[in-house]
């Protein structure tokens, strides 16, 4: 529970690329804090009462759709999950880096992730066609659980924004990209063989682009075991080569 009665100051990055008169700048807003206030509530309040032109993205407001990644005091986080009670009196909000800016706090993560999925062919490469009459293929529950652990990524882009390499190398698959690759690499339903995976993984834009900065793992709001995932990919590359 937050202390109520606190006045919060928000310094928000503003820029509307659609407006020729708009220049990137920071704008300050002040609002009253209420109990259980999230950035979702705070930003909506700012938009509805102070500046109706403010752009930001929320959809599920329950930390599951991945729409609302933003830089909160320099740290990528989901706006809907961030409680103001965990923040200091002054909150600086920026859009996520790496992704293309739509306006203010809104960025184009969807396009980035679609391209990543296309590049890494992030879908099940099945050999046989689906047989509507057949029983499902079996899978060990522990394996299913492991795949699910990786599948839980909501493509919010926080990890990508936090990664030094992804920030300077646009070709790098990025933490979430590596995670997607691993998710399909460990799925027995995907029939790509080790040699094919080797080409994707063992690559300076693949797992060897990662220099172990570990920020991705620390900011991931879904707490994905990203570091374990990279270790898995490295070892897979090594064992394929041997």
């Amino acid at each position, binding site marked *: 529970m937050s202390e109520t009665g606190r006045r919060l100051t928000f310094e928000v990055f503003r820029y509307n690329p659609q407006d020729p008169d708009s220049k990137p700048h920071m704008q300050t807003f002040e609002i009253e804090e209420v109990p259980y206030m999230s950035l979702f509530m705070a930003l909506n309040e700012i938009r509805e009462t102070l500046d109706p032109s403010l752009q930001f993205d929320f959809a599920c407001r329950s930390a599951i759709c991945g729409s609302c990644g933003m*830089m909160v005091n320099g740290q990528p986080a989901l706006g809907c999950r961030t409680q103001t009670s965990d923040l200091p009196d002054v909150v600086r909000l920026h859009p996520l880096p790496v992704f293309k800016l739509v306006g203010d706090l809104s960025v184009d993560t969807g396009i980035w992730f679609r391209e990543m999925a296309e590049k890494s*062919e992030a879908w099940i490469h099945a050999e046989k066609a689906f047989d509507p009459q057949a029983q499902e293929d079996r899978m060990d529950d522990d394996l299913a659980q492991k795949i699910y652990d990786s599948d839980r990524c909501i493509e919010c882009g926080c990890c990508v924004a936090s990664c030094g390499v992804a920030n300077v190398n646009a070709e790098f698959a990025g933490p979430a990209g590596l995670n997607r690759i691993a998710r399909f690499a460990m799925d027995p339903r995907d029939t790509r063989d080790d040699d094919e995976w080797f080409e994707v993984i063992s*690559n300076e834009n693949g797992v060897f682009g*990662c220099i172990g*900065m570990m920020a991705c793992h620390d900011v991931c709001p879904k707490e994905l075991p990203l570091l374990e995932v990279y270790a898995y990919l490295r070892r897979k590359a090594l064992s394929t080569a041997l």
Partner: protein
Amino acid sequence: MNLLKPANTATRQLVYELLSGGTGLVLALFMWGHMVFVGSILTGSRGFDWLAEMLEVYFIAQPTVIVIFVLFLVHAALAARKIPAQLVERRKMIELGKGLKGAHEESILWIWQVRTGMIVLVLGSFHLVLMAIDVLTPLWGERIGIEAVTSLERVQAGLWLPYAILLICVEFHASIGLYRLAVKWGAFAKLGRSTLHTIERVILWLFLGLGFVILLVLAGVIPPPLAFLLGGNA
């Protein structure tokens, strides 16, 4: 899949990665041995000379100097691939690392790894050249090889300063490097990352401390503390 670069670079990339990590690992392990070797000065000049001579008589020192020098350069060349070429990019990385909550440790540490690596490259090369001359030529001292007199003289003549810097840089660089290497490949994963980090810090301070005592002895500031082992006088 078009994440892949022109075909067949995968094997090469893997080799590069293994080499940069492997040379780092070997160099770091070497530094532990190095610490024992130079540490023999703690028992006094006699011990130091005895060990140096043994290593030379059995032809351990000579190839080691060459091999280490090669590994050193290979590691530097390969690891440097990962350093962003452009200043703006480096600045971006630094800004990012600083902004992350409480300044994200491993991100900042990586930047310091690069910085210390650069310093090690300069000072280490210089040191290695010195050692190569020492071990392979009769230029200094009474015979071919490393001798306590030369070392003490050198350090006391002023080399203590670059050595102190090199010591800090190399110990820092190596310990965080080992930690990163373990996390990257999932070694000792059972211990968990925070335990590994703690181990890394223990190693860092242990070797830094030991190194400084050695350096103080070499600089003649304190007498060899373990001299009693060899019966007293330095």
